[in-house]
């Protein structure tokens, strides 16, 4: 079946640019498709959904039926609608975390790698300590300290995640710095900041891109986990973790937890597919 799928995608896409080449693999197409679906949901769901996300639309705890395809929860809210709206919280939160983490972490890492010396030592020791924490414990501790709410979740996750990109960029900068064309530029007198910006950083972006894509899924998982534990988004926000928490309190009403979990799974799988495909295209040595 994958052969057929592959044949279809290959025939549909001309393959000159590496990005387009990535598209030819069915993995990439599926990942992109799922992502597109959710983005579409985020944008359009309020236009066409028959119920609102916090609207009490029917009897409580109905099992799936024709007017409520995924049933209702303890307050009579439509589960399907809440799940679809959940994307509006889970995905942008993860995007914010990744964006900030990449910027902050990469800046620190590039600085450390490029300058070396005590700046390098300080930044690296600091990131070592943060990385010595089991991630969820640190996230939980920070989230508990800051209080509930998605904004604090973003902050907590940034604290946990930045060392990964700091390390990554530092490693990249150090290895690229010693390449011959950089030494050539230095010997000709190109100012250091320019070297960093125009020669080193462009080469370092690919691993960051791949990493960020794979991390997106993990951040979604961690956000949902925190919400599930009561440390992230608060009810009645229909964030996916919150929904699953509600589902766990109504164990026998299986429809409440089923869809949000499936939603998370679809998003994380999609990003893993995307990340894998990107990695195959840009760095075939790192095969899955």
């Amino acid at each position: 079946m994958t052969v057929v799928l592959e044949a279809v995608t290959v025939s549909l896409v001309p393959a000159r640019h590496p990005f387009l080449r990535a598209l030819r693999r069915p993995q990439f197409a599926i990942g992109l498709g799922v992502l597109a679906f959710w983005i579409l949901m985020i944008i359009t769901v309020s236009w066409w959904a028959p119920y609102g996300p916090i609207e009490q639309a029917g009897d409580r705890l109905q099992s799936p039926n024709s007017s409520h395809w995924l049933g209702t929860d303890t307050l009579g809210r439509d589960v399907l609608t809440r799940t679809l709206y959940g994307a509006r919280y889970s995905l942008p939160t993860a995007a914010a975390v990744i964006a900030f983490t990449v910027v902050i972490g990469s800046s620190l890492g590039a600085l450390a790698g490029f300058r070396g010396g005590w700046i390098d030592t300080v930044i690296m020791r600091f990131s070592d300590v943060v990385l010595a924490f089991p991630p969820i414990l640190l996230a939980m501790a920070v989230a508990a300290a800051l209080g509930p709410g998605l904004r604090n979740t973003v902050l907590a996750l940034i604290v946990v995640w930045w060392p990964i990109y700091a390390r990554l960029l530092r490693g990249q900068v150090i290895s690229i710095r010693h390449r011959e064309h950089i030494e050539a530029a230095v010997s000709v007198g190109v100012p250091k900041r320019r070297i960093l910006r125009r020669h080193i950083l462009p080469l370092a972006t690919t691993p960051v891109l791949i990493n960020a894509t794979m991390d997106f899924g993990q951040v979604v998982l961690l956000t949902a986990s925190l919400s599930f534990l009561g440390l992230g988004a608060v009810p009645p926000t229909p964030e996916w973790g919150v929904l699953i928490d509600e589902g766990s309190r109504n164990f026998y009403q299986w429809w409440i937890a089923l869809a949000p979990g499936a939603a998370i799974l679809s998003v994380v799988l999609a990003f893993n597919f995307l990340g894998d495909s990107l990695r195959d295209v840009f760095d075939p040595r790192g095969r899955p």
Partner: protein
Amino acid sequence: MARYVLKRLAIAPLLLIGIVTIAFVISRLIPANPLVSIVGERNMGNPTVVAAAEARWGLDKSIPAQYASYMGNLVRGDFGTSFRTKSSVWDDLTERLPATAELTLAALLFGAVAGVLLGVVAAVKRDRALDHLARLFALTGSSIPVFWLGLILLFVFYARLGWLPGPGRLPPRTLPPPHLTGFYTIDSLAAGNFSLFWNCAKRLIMPAFVLGWGLTGIVSRLIRASMLDELYADYVRTARAKGLAERTVMIRHVLRNALLPTITIIGLSFGALLTGAVLTETIFSWNGIGSYAVEATRTLDYPAINGVCILGGAIFILTSLVTDVMYAVVDPKIRLS
């Protein structure tokens, strides 16, 4: 090699101090007043009670002084007293450690073994249906929310099919076996109580699977990649030229070399396992450090939060050290240098 180990050992305490400091800073950032959970809402209006509690729990001192006294206590092995359970954090942790250890080890065993098997299958049947299936299984393991999976499995296998027992380490209204290791499976076996052993073992199945599936994903991907790297290596060609059966070539030559990097990864996955343990223990009512951590953060019990962070960090540091040493032992090139 001894020098390498010693160097790593020397850094460890510094990292620990760093962890402690950060944990302390975080816990002092908590805006809500921890006294509320200590003395209760009603008593907050009573200045005598509040003052007494503050004095008792050291909350009246300045922050640096609190830090100093906390560090001082730590060195003596005193992690403070939990606001919630009112007993020593150290006691709480040691009491619950075996539960988490039992779960984590079971998950590790499952994850590693299943991961190696799947990885070998995927490598040998490269690009065929079995390979794609194995990789999908592995990928799903890294993508599925652990707490959701636990719920689904409980619903299907416990609530609907009744094949496996429900959440909890022990059957309801049952006492644990006489304490030997704290692992209920081992202890009940040692006490000769086979029905209890069987029950405890069955209770371990779902949580270990849930926790271990993610590891299966990581391990199988790595084994597949490593084996494929080695599959057409020169020494493999030599092995075939000697007349060895394909299966022997795979296992004795290819897999052996592919296992080396896998050991490192398994060791480094401890962090991910701990993460999963927190959520798994919550779902399966497993009385371990993970659920303790959750309760601590919910009630802003910061001696407990600090204690868990320090313990978690220490375990983390220890496992990466052990992993590095093990890798050095197994790889002859490093061992003999």
